[in-house]
Each structure stands twice: as structure tokens, then as C-alpha cells.
């Protein structure tokens, strides 16, 4: 059994270079786990093969985008860790920032709505004791 296990080795592959690592971090492992290739556990026998495949493609002169395309054609859209920002899938990138922008607009209106009119300005009464302590703190802070 342990000898069978020994087949799960990275021994045949190299230490991935930067481009290969980057590509492996943008592609999902196809072993059925929910991880990117670079993060698939060391029990996985598929991830090393995929890294090897990426390496061969990079060595053969394919660009990063071409490697993604080749993987997409071979394993389906799911292999990309994030879908390409086009068509409906553009929304995955757009919506978080649309949501944030909408929030900023809402806050702007809320603050504006909650701001008092100058004609109806609340007059703040500062208690003499508060004033005494405030001066004390101010003096202390200026030291």
C-alpha cells in the first residue's frame, strides 16, 4: 500500500518557475477538489501532472493566455479559477464595485438628509464641568 502511495510523488517534476506558478494559481485542479492547482494537497496525483503540462506548454513558447485557452478547451470553462471577464461573466467583477458605489451614494444621501439646516442649527450646550475637563485634557495633550 505504501509503495502504491509512493507513486504520488513530485519527484519527477521540477520546482515550478514564476510563470508556471502564476498560471497554476489561476487554474483549478481537475481532481475534483475545490482548490487551485497550486494549492491542491500533496495527496493529489493530478496536480503534479497539470503543473508538468503547464510547464511543457510554457516551454513550447505559449503565452499565459494561450495556456489558459488550451486548458479551457481541454477541461472546460470550470478549469479557470475566475471566468474570463466577458459576456454574463463580466458581472462577477463588476457587481462588487457597483455595490460599493451604490453604498457610497446611499451614504452621501443619508448624511445629507440627516444634516441639519443651517437655519435650524442645534445649539450645543457645553456643561461647565465638561468644559473644565476638556481644557484639562487639551492642556495635557499639548505638553
Amino acid at each position, binding site marked *: *500500500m*505504501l*509503495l502504491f*502511495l*509512493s*507513486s*504520488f*510523488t*513530485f*519527484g519527477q*517534476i*521540477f*520546482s515550478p518557475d514564476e510563470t508556471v506558478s502564476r498560471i497554476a*494559481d*489561476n487554474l483549478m485542479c481537475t481532481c475534483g477538489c*475545490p*482548490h*487551485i492547482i*497550486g*494549492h*491542491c*494537497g*500533496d*495527496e493529489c496525483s493530478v496536480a503534479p501532472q497539470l503543473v508538468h503540462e503547464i510547464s511543457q506548454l510554457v516551454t513550447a513558447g505559449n503565452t499565459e493566455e494561450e495556456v489558459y485557452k488550451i486548458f479551457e478547451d481541454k477541461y*472546460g*470553462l*470550470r478549469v*479557470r*479559477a*475566475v*471566468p474570463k471577464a466577458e*459576456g*454574463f*461573466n463580466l*458581472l*462577477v*467583477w463588476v*457587481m*462588487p464595485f457597483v*455595490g*460599493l458605489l451604490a*453604498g457610497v451614494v446611499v*451614504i452621501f444621501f*443619508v*448624511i445629507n438628509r*440627516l*444634516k*441639519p439646516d443651517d437655519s435650524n442649527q*442645534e445649539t*450645543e450646550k*457645553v*456643561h461647565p464641568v*465638561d*468644559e473644565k*475637563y*476638556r481644557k*484639562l*485634557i487639551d492642556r*495635557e*495633550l499639548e505638553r
Partner: protein
Amino acid sequence: MIELGHYCLIASLVVCTFGMVAAIVGGVQKNLPLVRSAENCLITNFVFLGVASLCLWYLLLTDEFLVEYVASYSATDIPARFKFTAFWGGQKGSLLLWALVLSFFSFLVTVQNRHRNRDLMPYTAAVLLGTIGFFMLLLNFATNPFETLNFIPEDGQGLNPLLQNYYMIIHPPVLFLGYVGLAIPFALAMGALISGRLDTSWLPTVRRWTLVAWIFLLFGLTLGGMWAYEELGWGGYWAWDPVENASFMPWLIATAFLHSVMITEKKGMLKIWNFVLILLAFELSIFGTFITRSGVVSSVHSFALSSVGPFFVTYLALSTALGLFWIVYRSKELHSEKRMRSFLSREASFLLNNLLFVAICFAIFWGTVFPILSEWVTGEKITVSMPFFNAVNLPLGLALLILTGVCPLIAWRKSSAKNFKRNFLTPLGAGFLSGVVAVALGVRDLIPLVFFSACGFVAMTMIYEFYKGARARQTIRPSGFLVALMDLTLMNKRRYGGFIIHLGVVLVFAGIIGSSFFKSEQLFTVAEGEEFSIGDYTLKYEQLTFRKDPEKEVVFAHIAVFKGGKKIDDLYPQKDFHYKSEQPMTEVKIRSTLKEDLYLVLSGYEEGGQATFHVFINPLVQLIWIGIGIMVLGGMFVLIPNKKSGPAVALKKPSSEEVRDKAA
């Protein structure tokens, strides 16, 4: 025991149904005996679910494989502690645990509110009983943990080996305490909305319960991260897995609520917003349970697929509709009591803080559910994974970190240019200095540099707040600095406990940035006796050893670790092969220091003794665990009750910070 467990679940469902009706009728008719009866149902329910849970534990510990759940998640050869934890190893037990914890919390709420929040309690009890009732429906009719097989297997299938470690003994129940804890604020808020009791008198109770849930969620998330770090063997602690996201989202919203409720308590503002946040946090906790146990999305946590999805979706829809209906219905009575004077005020900065928490939560939610949505629309399966979550959350996280430092420096109502300059000068100086130190230490990338500077800025803000407060207190009541600091902190646990939490946040950010941007990893294939180097370490592969245990085969390598020519440690990374699950498992070995973790994985080996090691250097990871520990302690500090107000306390001078806040 099987029958007793069955009957307890049925009895619990009956009690929930009766109690819910009694609570509503009692509340509407102002009938105290009926309301008390409903509250007693909450207590009785805890007894029934306690007995049902004891039955399941008994069946697990006695290997009663006639029970389908026991046969699926336990086995004769697993240690007793894992038979005990097999209770939450699968969906049925997890849902029973959810109901048990909720019934326990409901019991506590009932006792806590015997003489307070009386207007709210009938409806609060009804909501709690309704929620427990939902789980009872599931447990009785969809996923019964006491369901039997029509034969008795010789042995069970055993617990997933990934779950057989000490983190799994406490990670799920702690996380569930957090999830379930959020049901209490929801029930109290619904009680307030339905009863029309919309003042702020009940808010402290809600705030404390939310904080309890917040602490448990944070602790549970951390335990999960530690488990992933030590068990999954990829060198990281957070993978933006859908289930991790599902636990993180309610925590984010609970954090937003804990900030916004301060505005409500101090200024009477944002009341509607608070109700929305409480509702959202609860619904996300249900959504999290649904994601964890339904198998609707692919996850490392999807240990079992199930049929509970439609039940959860229905409950989510109903409870959201109910919550929204009452918020809209009461919206006119929930207007702000005070007005916001400036964009440059603490109120406004808290609003911005809330926006960021909700935006991060939304981005995570969107990324988590988008694959399902995309498949519905385009018919194609896609994945949204780590690169998306990292890219989107990096700028939002930075903004949140900076705001953590900015908020305390801005005065309530309106900041003047003078106090703005005075307050910001020192923290900004510290931020700049942190950046210079980071450059001196070799950091050249812009993103980590900005983050480390922001960490310095926020840390100094917090430390300076303690310093200023203690100095002012010394002036009012002469004493040593440390005594003044302690007095100050104890007098305003909420404020200074919050600052302690923020100091923890700084460490967490520093740790995340350090371990993400400066991580290095390398694969080495070496023969016995050979040496290899990574970072400052030289590792010598001494030998490979095989061992047979009753439940697994183990192979482990002896690695001697050297630094600066001196031997500093021996590590034994190993691989296990469990006979039953036929699943190989990596047992990572980690040498931790504050500066970095040396993370060693035995990736593979060959017959002649040659082995491949995957070695990582993960800088500053320990800061994350320490930071979270500080956050948890800070949260617990805030929870310590203040002394009862008496005449002596009433005469006490206000703290300098309180006075400064008022004056500003």
C-alpha cells in the same frame, strides 16, 4: 436509546409548536400565564434536545451500527474521542447540534429576561421556538439521526480521516455556537419590532449576544484556518472555500452591527440599518449552515450531499420576508433622533466602516453564489476562486484597515481642523516610520509597503489613545501611569476593549500580508543523508521509516534542521494511509517562530529511500494566530459586566475620554 432519541425529537417538535402558538397568543392578548408557558417550553425543549443528544452520543460510543448515522460516521477501531466528535461529523448530527445549542441559548435568554425586556419576550420566544421548530421538522422528517438500517453492519465506515484531529474536536461546535448565537439578536430584534418597543433599552442585551456570537465565530473560523494549515498540506490557512466564506460573512455583518449599534446607543441614529444588519447576520448564518451541509457548492467541507436544500431555502425565504415586513412596517417609528453634522465626523466614519464591511460581505457572497447563477443563465459550469476574492478584497481590506485607525481620531458630530491635525500627527508619523522600517528590512513591493505603513498608523492610533487617556486620568486623579491606565481601561471596557481588538486586527493584517507576499516554497527530491537548503535553513534528510498501526500505515521521514551551521530541530513529516477510507493523508510538520514558519511536507517517496519534500517558508503566520487571540480576549474583556451603579459610582467623575467625546 434509539426509541428514546426518536421520542425526544418528536416531543421537541410538539413543544415548539405549542410554545410558538402560546407565545404569539399570549403576546397579543397580554396573557402572562400563556407567555410564561411559552418560555417554559423553551426550557423544556432544552431538556428534550439534551436527552436526544445524549442518546446519540451513547449510540456512537457503544458502536450501535443499526443506526445509519453511527454506521456512517463511526467505527469500532476509532478512538473514543473521535466517536464523541462523530456527533458533528455528518449532516444529521450537525443539525441536531445546531438545535441543541440554540435550545441552550434560548434557555439562557429566557432566564436572563425573566424580569426585563418583558414586552419583547413573547415574540422573541415565538421566533426562537419557530427556529428550533424548523430544525425539528428537518430532524424528524428529512434527516433523522436515529434512522435505522434494515441490517446490522459488522463495523461502521468510520470518520473521515481529515476530521480525526484535535481541531475537529472543537472547530465545528465553536463555529456552531457562533452561528446559533446570531439567532438570539435576531429573535430579540423581531421581538422589538413586533411589540413596537423601539427605544434603545433592549440594545445592550442584543449587543452582548452579538458579541458572544462574534467571539465564537472568530474563534471557530480561526480553528478552521489552523486545521487547514496543518492538515491540508498546501501551506496556507485560507482558501476562500465556499464554506469558509459562509462562516466569514455573518462575522463581517456582526462586526458591522457591533460598530453601528454604538451610533444608535449614543446618538439614536441608524435604527433601521441596525435591524437590517441583525436580519442579514442571522440569514447568513442559516445560509452558512445550508452551504456547509447541503453540498450545493463544491467545498472541502462537503462531506455529504443531502436533501435538506429545499427546507433551508423555504426557511430562509420565510424568515427574510418576515423580518423585512416588520422593518418596513415600523420604519416610520425608526427615524433618527439626532442629526449628522458633517462628513468629517465619527458618525460618518462609522457609516463608511459599515459600508466597507457590507461591501466585503457582498463581494464574498457574490463570488460564492456566482457559479450557480452563471450556470442558470449560461448553462455552463464556471468557477470563482481565490484570485477573484484576493483581488476584490485587497483594496477593501486596506480601506477598512486605514479606517480602523481614522475612526477613533475623529470627534463625534464634527471635527475641527485643529483637533484633526493634533490627533493625526503622531499616528501618521508612526505609519511613515513603519514604512521606512519595512523598506530597511527589504520590502520593496508597493502593496505590502502600504499595508505595513497602515498597520503602523493604526497601531499607534490605538496605543496613543491609551496613552492620552491614562495621562488625562492621572491629571484628574493623581496616580502612577499603569494604575491610571488600568483604571481608565476598566472604567470604559467597551471603548478600550474595542481598541484591544483593533490592536489584534493590526497583527492579523501584518500576518496576512507577510505570509501572502513573502512566502517561498520549493520541492526537493533527495536521497537519505543528503542536504538541501531553503531560506536560512539547511535540512538534512536522515532516513525514511515505515510503521503499521491498527487503523493505518504510516511512513515518516526524519529531517534534521540546521540554521547558521547549528542544529536547531528534528522534524518528522509523514504520510498515512487509512485502511478503511483508502485515503492518503499528509501530516505536515511545522517549526514556528514569530518571524516565520518552516513548513515541511513529505510529498512522495520511492522504494530506495529517495523522497520528495515540499518545503515552505511562511513569514509572520504566527502574528495571525496571536492577533486573533488578542481579538478574542478583547471581545471577552468587553463582555465583563460593569459594576452595578450605586451612589458612590454616580458621584464618580466622568472619564477623560468621555468628557473629550462630549466636548468635541
